[in-house]
C-alpha cells in the first residue's frame, strides 16, 4: 500500500499553513460548542485517565500500547468506556474530551479516517436508554455544526466548505435510524459484499454515507462485532442495544454508542465471548459486582467530526500533531 501520498508535512509547515489554522479554529469552536451544549444539560466534565491497568478491548484489530508502570503493565487508554461507567457513581451525567491511542492496523493508513492518536467527546448518562443517548448525540452534533456555521464563516471559506452542505442537517429534520440488518441489505443491493455478522466495513460505511445528505444512525449491531459493554437486547437476543452515527457525503462513522451492560454475571460472560480474560479487569469487575448504574452513552471522534464539518480530505488534517497509523511523526 502506498502511504507516501497525502501525508502531513513537517510540523512547522503543517502548523503554520492557513488550512491547518482554519481547521484548528473550527475545532476550537466545536469544542466550545460541545461543552456549552452538554453543560447546559447538566453534564459534568471530568478529566479522564490516560493510563490504567486495563483499557477498552473493543477496538477492531488495533494494538494497545503498553506502559511500564513501576513494573506493572499498564495501557494507554484506547477509550474511556470503563472509566465512564465507573464515574457514574459520582455524577449521573458526565462527559470528557478524552485522548485515545490505538495502534491501528497498517491497512488503515490510507483510509483517510484513522489516526493512531485522537480524541473523543465521551458522554455517559446514568439511567438513560439508547434512544436518550441518541437524542443527545443528535442534539450535540446539530449544535456544534450550527455554532461553526454562525461563528466560523471566514474559516469555512478558507477551507472551501460551503455552509449549504449543512442545510439538511440544520433544517430541523431528525436523523434517520436504520438497523444494521437494513444497512447490510442496502449494501448488498449496492453490490457490496458485507457480512451480516460483522461491523460494517470502511468501504461499506463510505458507500452508505455518500448516499445521505444529513447524518444518520445505524442501530442493532450483531453481537460479535462490538465490545462486552454494549448491552444485548432482551427482546432480540444476538443483537446489541447500540448505535453508530454516520456523517453524510462519504465521511463515514462519527460516533459509536450504546445502552451499557452493567450486570456483573452478564459482563463476565460477555468478556469471555469477546475473548477477554476477566482476571485483568479486576478493579472494574469489583466495582461492577458492588453495583454501577445502568447507563447509555457514546463517544464522538472529535477529529472525524472536524473532518466532516470542515470538509477535509483526510482526518489527519484535523490534528495539530497527526499520527497516521504506521507513519513516524512528532
Amino acid at each position, binding site marked *: 500500500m502506498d502511504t507516501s501520498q497525502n501525508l502531513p508535512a513537517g510540523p512547522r509547515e503543517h502548523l503554520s499553513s492557513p488550512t491547518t489554522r482554519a481547521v484548528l479554529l473550527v475545532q476550537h469552536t466545536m469544542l466550545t460548542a460541545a461543552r456549552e451544549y452538554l453543560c447546559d444539560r447538566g453534564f459534568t466534565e471530568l478529566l479522564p485517565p490516560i493510563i490504567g491497568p486495563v483499557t477498552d478491548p473493543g477496538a477492531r484489530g488495533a494494538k494497545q500500547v503498553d506502559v511500564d508502570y513501576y513494573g506493572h*503493565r499498564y495501557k494507554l487508554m484506547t477509550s474511556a468506556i470503563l472509566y465512564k461507567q465507573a464515574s457514574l457513581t459520582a455524577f449521573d451525567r458526565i462527559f470528557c474530551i478524552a485522548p485515545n491511542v490505538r495502534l491501528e492496523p497498517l491497512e488503515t493508513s490510507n483510509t483517510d479516517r484513522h489516526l493512531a492518536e485522537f480524541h473523543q467527546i465521551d458522554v455517559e448518562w446514568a439511567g438513560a436508554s439508547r434512544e436518550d443517548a441518541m437524542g443527545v448525540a443528535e442534539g450535540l452534533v446539530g449544535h456544534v455544526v450550527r455554532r461553526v456555521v454562525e461563528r466560523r464563516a471566514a474559516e469555512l471559506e478558507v477551507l472551501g466548505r460551503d455552509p449549504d452542505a449543512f442545510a439538511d442537517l440544520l433544517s430541523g429534520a431528525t436523523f434517520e435510524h436504520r438497523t444494521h440488518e437494513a444497512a447490510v441489505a442496502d449494501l448488498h443491493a449496492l453490490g457490496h459484499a458485507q457480512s451480516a455478522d460483522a461491523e460494517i466495513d470502511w468501504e461499506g460505511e463510505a458507500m452508505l454515507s455518500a448516499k445521505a445528505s444529513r447524518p444518520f444512525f445505524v442501530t442493532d449491531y450483531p453481537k460479535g462485532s462490538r465490545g462486552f459493554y454494549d448491552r444485548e437486547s432482551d427482546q432480540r437476543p444476538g443483537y446489541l442495544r447500540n448505535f453508530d452515527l454516520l456523517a453524510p457525503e462519504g465521511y463515514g462513522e462519527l460516533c459509536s454508542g450504546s445502552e451499557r451492560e452493567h450486570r456483573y454475571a452478564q459482563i463476565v460472560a460477555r468478556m469471555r465471548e469477546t475473548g477477554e480474560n476477566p482476571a485483568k479487569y479486576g478493579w472494574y469487575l469489583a466495582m461492577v459486582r458492588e453495583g454501577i448504574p445502568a447507563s447509555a452513552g457514546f463517544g464522538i471522534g472529535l477529529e472525524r467530526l472536524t473532518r466532516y464539518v470542515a470538509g477535509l480530505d483526510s482526518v489527519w488534517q484535523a490534528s495539530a500533531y497527526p499520527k497516521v497509523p504506521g507513519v513516524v511523526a512528532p
Partner: protein
Amino acid sequence: MSLSAPGFPHEAVRERARTGTAAVFPDVSTYGTTLYGAGEAVTGDALDAAALVPPVFVPERLEKLIDLAREPLHSDVDLTTDVGGFASALPVYLSAFGSTQVASVDLGVAASAQAGALGVPMVVGENIVPVSGYGRLDDAGGRSLLARITAYADAAPDGLGGVVVQQSTEDADAEVWNLVYSDPAARPLLESGRLGFELKVGQGAKPGLGGLTVVAREDATRLADQFAVEPVFGRDGPLLRSASPGTFTEEILRQQIRLMRNNFPRARVWVKLPPGRDIGAATRVAWAAGADSVTVDGAQGGSGWAPRAFLAGVGLPLAECLSRIGTPQGCLLVSGRIWEGLRAVKCLAAGARAVGLGRAALLAVETDAQAGLRRLVEALTLEARLLVSALGKYRPAALTREDLWWPGEVTAAEPVPVR
C-alpha cells in the same frame, strides 16, 4: 541434548529425516534376498488398526485414464489442497509446538523455513509472547515469533502456504493477534492472503487443561501475575506454571469466532479443539460461526508437558473424534501421532482435509536442521500418492469413508449391486 518421545516411533521418524523417500520401503539392500509378506502385528490405536481398502473396480481411474490418454500412475495424484483458506502444496500442515523448552527457538526457526519451502501452512504456538515477550514483535518473546514468521515467508513459494498464529486465553492479555496484525513484519503475508489466526480452545495431550510448562524459580515472580505457579517438584526444584483452559460455551465459542472475523477481516480464522466428548457439536458451532478451519487434536497429540494421568487416559482417540464429527461441514484438520502417509491418508479418508505434523516435525528438524522435515514430508508424500492411487483416486478430496475398513465391521461399505 537430543529430543526423545516415549511411545512415539522416533527412530523411524529420524530415519526418514535422514534418508527421505528411501525409508518408505524396506532396506533396499535386502531387495531380491528377503521375503516380505504379512506385516508386523498392529499395535497402535484404532486408526492404526484400520486398513485402507482399495477396490477392484476403479471408475475414477477410468476417468483419469481418459483424461491422460494413458494408464495413470501414483505420480498422477494431485495433492494440492485448500487448507483452511490457504493454497497448500500438500494435505499437510505444521502443527504448533507450544512454548515448552522442547520447542526451542532454533528448532522452531528451522522448522519454519522448511515448512515454508514445502509450501504447506504452519501454525505458530501459543504462549510464546506472554512467556517471554512484552510489547512489540522485536521484544524478547516477539523475536522468536517474528523469526519464525520471517523464516517461513522468506522460504515460501509465491501463492502457497500460510502462517497461522495461535492465541489462547492468557495470550489475549498480550494481544498476540493485534500485535501481529498491526506489525510491518507480517504485512507481506497479510497482503498475500497468507496470514491466519487460530483460537486455541484446547489441545490433545491434556484436554481440559491449559498450557503447562516448567519454569525456573527465578522466572516465577515475573510470571506469577498471569499464571498459577506451583512448587510441585520439591522445595528447591523448578516450578509448574499452569495457564487456565479458558471457559467455553457454545455461545462463547460462536461469538469469539465472529469477533475474530470482525476484527481481522483479512486474516483466516482457525479454531483448535481438544478431543472432547462433544467434539461433533463443537466443530459444527465453529464452522457455522464462520471458522475457515477447525483443527482437532486427538488424545494422541501434543508435544508439550502433560501429567501422566492425562497421557494415560483422558480424551478421545483421534479415530473416535473423526467418527463423532461424521461428515465435516467445513475444513477439518487433524493431528495426533501422524508422521507417515498411511495414518495421514486414513485421516483424509475419514473426513480430514489435511494432517498436522507436530512431534514428528520436531524430531525431523532436530535430526537435520536443513532438510530433515523436507525429507520426512517427501517420504509421507510418496506414500500418500501410492496409497491414494491404489484406492483408484487421484486427489485427496475424492477419498471417502468407504476407503477405510475398521476391524470388527462386517463390510466396509454398503454392498454395490452388480450390473
